[in-house]
């Protein structure tokens, strides 16, 4: 029915720019937090923030004032918009790093910002010592925005995107195989998801405050842990700051960060049964327990357990931290042995439930894979059997299974490709592949576990750009970004 207007361009560029302008305005609004914090505390980085804020606002306002002839946004525009948005936001988000006194070049600043937005938590900064507090807060804010997704936030607050294009964007940014809508209108769904996210973050911050943590640290950790990003506030990790209490609180919230947010919504809106019966959630819990058991076994074998905590909380914390892709490691993890490293790699690979803020290939996909394989083996014995992959008591169509298999294949392919390129750049073999996996699964686990002194800051510039790209590919679940490199996307 909208045949009245036809876009002049093949891709509706003016409309795209206009939406990006809106998104920049929202980014500028988020930049206000560190700016205000800086102004209140008289932080030395505050001028840098004021400048970044002004530039972002200016660019956003400039783009917003474009008046597109047609407001039509199709599939192509939506896909382009989602991946462009993340890059453009990282571009503007890195301004504070450049303006403030952090001794970073463009590569490092972009790497740091993208690592934040994708909730990876890899850091290109050698040390946080001497870095302005407002920058530390900004890193955590970027993770928090990226955790639930800025486009989802935009869908919640801007009625403009509530049309066909907006639906595509919702599908492109929310993780998982299928996308449950919680409520009939996508803006309401987005609002509900963000509301849960905000409430959880608030709870975490308050609970951290109870431990006697400084207000600033509590807020920063609240933001970075709820988004399962894991940026630290100081050079030592969160574990060194506090007590067993802090560790328990952090473990619980990392766990929640890996749970499907729509399940949490169902649970709090009076359908707790739906959450309890959810199959991916059960697998998630079991997988954590298995990981915990294997870690314990390893601690036992290597005879490094000295206290109760070494067998109870520490391995559990480690398992949850990895599976939720938060990526905080125990200080003495390098002593845990190679079985632990293997478990770490496997857990990083699977990730937590779809529809959560965690990374990885998502446990839901592995369930589909395993059930499909089981069916295939069964069919070898009973060739005429008709089987379906059943999840949550409902059959899944073969189209979905195909998509999942393709996804997992591409996932492995990207890790291998990234590893090979990093090896060519001169990284040791193991490190190269480990980085690839760490980046695509948005875990961002540091390299100390490899026993090698490589820091992310010591990577060659090309390696950093490569990892930046892989992080984005991982956050947007492969296809949205990779589609841009398929010629048929651009062809008429």
């Amino acid at each position: 029915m909208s045949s009245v207007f036809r876009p002049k361009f093949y891709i509706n560029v003016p409309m795209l720019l206009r939406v990006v302008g809106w998104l920049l305005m929202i980014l500028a609004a988020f930049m206000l937090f560190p700016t205000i914090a800086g102004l209140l505390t008289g932080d030395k980085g505050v001028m840098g923030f004021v400048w970044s804020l002004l530039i972002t606002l200016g660019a956003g306002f400039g783009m917003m004032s474009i008046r597109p002839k047609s407001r039509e946004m199709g599939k192509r525009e939506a896909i382009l918009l989602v991946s462009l948005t993340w890059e453009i936001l990282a571009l503007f988000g890195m301004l504070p790093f450049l303006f403030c006194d952090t001794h970073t070049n463009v590569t490092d600043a972009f790497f740091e910002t993208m690592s934040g937005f994708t909730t990876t938590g890899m850091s290109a900064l050698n040390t946080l010592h001497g870095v302005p507090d407002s920058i530390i807060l900004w890193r955590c804010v970027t993770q928090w925005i990226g955790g639930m997704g800025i486009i989802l936030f935009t869908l919640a607050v801007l009625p403009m995107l509530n049309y066909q294009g907006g639906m595509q964007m919702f599908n492109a940014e929310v993780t998982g195989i299928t996308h449950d809508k919680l409520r009939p209108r996508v803006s309401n769904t987005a609002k509900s998801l963000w509301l849960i996210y905000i409430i959880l973050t608030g709870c975490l911050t308050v609970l951290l405050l109870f431990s006697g943590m400084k207000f600033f640290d509590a807020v920063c950790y609240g933001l970075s842990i709820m988004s399962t990003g894991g940026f630290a506030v100081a050079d030592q990790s969160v574990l060194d700051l506090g007590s067993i209490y802090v560790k328990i609180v952090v473990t619980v919230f990392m766990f929640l960060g890996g749970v499907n947010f729509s399940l949490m919504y169902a649970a709090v809106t009076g359908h707790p049964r739906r959450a309890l019966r959810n199959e991916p959630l059960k697998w998630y819990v079991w997988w954590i327990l298995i990981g915990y058991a294997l870690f314990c076994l390893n601690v036992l074998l290597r005879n490094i357990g000295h206290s109760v905590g070494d067998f109870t909380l520490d391995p559990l914390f480690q398992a949850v931290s990895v599976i939720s892709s938060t990526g905080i490691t125990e200080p003495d993890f390098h002593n845990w042995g190679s079985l632990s490293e293997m478990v770490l790699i496997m857990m990083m690979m699977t990730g937590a439930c779809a529809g959560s803020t965690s990374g990885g290939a998502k446990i839901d996909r592995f369930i589909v894979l395993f059930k499909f394989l089981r069916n295939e083996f069964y069919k070898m014995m009973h060739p005429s059997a008709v089987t379906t992959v059943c999840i949550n008591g409902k059959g899944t169509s073969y189209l979905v299974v195909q998509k999942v298999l393709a996804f997992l294949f591409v996932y492995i392919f990207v890790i291998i490709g990234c590893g090979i390129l990093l090896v060519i750049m001169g990284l040791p073999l193991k490190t190269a592949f480990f980085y690839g996996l760490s980046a695509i699964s948005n875990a961002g686990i540091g390299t100390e576990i490899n026993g090698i002194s490589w820091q992310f800051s010591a990577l060659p510039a090309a390696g950093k750009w490569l990892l930046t790209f892989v992080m984005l590919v991982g956050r947007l679940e492969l296809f949205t970004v990779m589609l841009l490199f398929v010629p048929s996307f651009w062809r008429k």
Partner: protein
Amino acid sequence: MKIVIAGAGEVGTHLAKLLSNEEQDIILLDSNQERLDIIDANYNLMTFNGSTSSFEALRSIGVGSADLYIAVTPYETRNITSCAIAKKLGAGKTVARIDNSEFLRKENGLILRELGVDALIYPENLAAIEINTALSHNWARYWGELHDGALILIGVKPSPSFPLFGVKIKDLPIKNHDFHIAAIKRKTETIIPNGNDEIRENDIVYFITTPPFVSEVRELSCKKKRNIKKVLIMGGSRIAARFMRQYADKYHIKVIDVSRPRCEELAENFPDCEIVCGDGRDIEVLRDNNIYQYDAFMALTDSSETNILSCLTAKEFGVPKTIADVENLQFVSSAESLNIGTTINKKLLASSRIFKILLDADEHNSKFLALADAEVAEIPVKPGAKITRAPVKDLHLPYGMTLAALVRGDHCELISGMSKIEAGDYVVVFCLSGTIHKIEKWFS
């Protein structure tokens, strides 16, 4: 407003899209996942895979909090069961699509209400009534009545001798001007005209007027009134059967259908009508049935393409009035530009009927007549609304809407630049599809 639509068939899907664009909360329920997937990925609504008559499915979509429940699967018994369950689970108003005129009778309506069905839609019946309207006002392309017939909307394609071609709308003589040009349809584009637009040849012009001046509009557009008696129908579809049931005594009807069993069935049910078994696409068959003698030709087969082309053939034979059932929405505007006369679309008819039901459920909503890509809304004016501040010409109203008429009390009048709108009036507004929510803020 939360609206549950059960059945993602043609009518259900169309309604879901339409209502979703009107910013309603839509949940679409169907048991065909593939069909749902397409809609789910592209429209701002929620879909749910489940049977329309399953307690569990209805409970899990929260039908208890729904304001309106619309069951539009192709099976009337299923719709009625579904509505009954939904009502008992707490749904506000229930609407069922039916396929049997018995349900429409007053004495049966009560029984249905007890079962939990509040309103009925019978698309075939709506189509039959629409056809009859088109035949009675055969000089017009479109005939719609607003406010119980106090205002009439006429879509007409003026003859080449129409005196107003090329005249700008602002230059029309104001004095003897008892109609309002509400919309112009030019090729595939619908224009809501402002003073600088003009009428060109081959446009379809939508006039809004009051009953005494209908004949003036007809004379102005140089159209002749014709008394239609003999009607040839191609395709013995459900619409055709409904039309025969309703109007067999008013018209002399002949039906041509390909299927012999269907012909036999029709012949048993409608002894007053002539039934011929043959392929209406075959010119010989049309000739044999003396197509020249008929006043009207209606193509009501299931295929929109066949209907459009057959109507063109009938036009070549000199049949003055042709009506085509065009179910593919994208064909409607092409069909109209092909000079077919009137097109019938069950989906549009059903959706405008649902809009009327919506009005009863929600007083703040407006009343609609849905055209292919424009809407006619009757909007109540609230006290203190922006639109009451100045005479219409000083309001700087947005492009894409026109105020056609206002209803004050029992009295209807056309709006000119000098009119001043008051709170409590009902204003008839023409606008392009999907812009109604922008306009509503002027009235509240």
